[in-house]
């Protein structure tokens, strides 16, 4: 949707919450739970808690692993210990991370009298990834990469990539 269309429809945004996450925030083991819990509290959602955890988990892994740390998912497949090496490299790079920024915006939106939805936008200020190629890749039964996006596409009513792949916007129906 272009900004022009946005102005023309009758979307009512009733609440917005933004986070500007630093390297220290991204290192925190409680990153996903603090985001999900804040959203549940702020937007008075309780039933959706487990789904929000899953959505935030995939969104943050995506932003951190690929955007901020520049790790390629294909590494998970290389050799029998690929996944293990991926996690260890991730941990190592995350601990050394100095400057990083990830912005998270959560909006409660409603169009006319349709069911309201939550729009979550995550922007990482990293080099981005080739989402056109990644989205075209079929997710194999035994492959380890691409599952995060597959999960997001199932849990959300829409998943869109913006910019050079450094921005992802998902919408999640609240009904």
């Amino acid at each position, binding site marked *: 949707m272009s900004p022009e269309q946005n102005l023309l429809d009758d979307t009512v945004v009733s609440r917005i919450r933004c986070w500007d996450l630093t390297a220290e925030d991204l290192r925190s*083991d409680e990153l*996903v*739970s603090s985001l999900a819990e804040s959203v549940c509290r702020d937007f008075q959602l309780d039933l959706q808690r*487990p*789904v929000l*955890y*899953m959505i935030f*988990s*995939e969104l943050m*892994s995506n932003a951190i692993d690929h955007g901020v740390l520049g790790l390629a998912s294909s590494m*998970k497949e290389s050799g*029998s210990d690929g*996944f*293990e090496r991926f*996690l260890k490299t*991730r941990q190592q790079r995350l601990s050394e991370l100095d400057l990083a920024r990830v912005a998270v915006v959560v909006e409660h939106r409603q169009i006319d009298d349709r069911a309201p939805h939550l729009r979550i936008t995550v922007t990482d200020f990293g080099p981005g990834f080739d989402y056109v190629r990644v989205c075209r890749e079929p997710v194999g*039964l*035994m492959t*380890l990469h691409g*599952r*995060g996006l*597959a*999960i997001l596409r*199932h*849990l959300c009513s829409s998943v869109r990539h913006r910019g050079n792949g450094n921005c992802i916007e998902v919408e999640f129906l609240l009904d």
Partner: protein
Amino acid sequence: MSVIFERSENGEEITVSVEGRFDYRLYESFKASYSDVGDIGRQVNVDLSSTEYMDSSALGMLLMLREHVGRAAKILLKNPTPDVMRVLTIANFDKLFAIES
């Protein structure tokens, strides 16, 4: 969040229970629960009844377990909550693993 290991009395089954959130932070303990325990017997149960949620790295860990076990034993995913079951289904894991509700 934690991983609990238990061996059945006859020694033929091990059960790995994942409590709380099942994500990359559990990697070390999840792996240790089946790779450092000696003989894994004939069946590995992964008890998901107390698993609050599971993300894509948890799916990766289940595949690692599958690779480790090979044909030596059967893997049974037990009692996933509806939300966890949803993720398993999305990832087609219901075709890769036996799931018992």
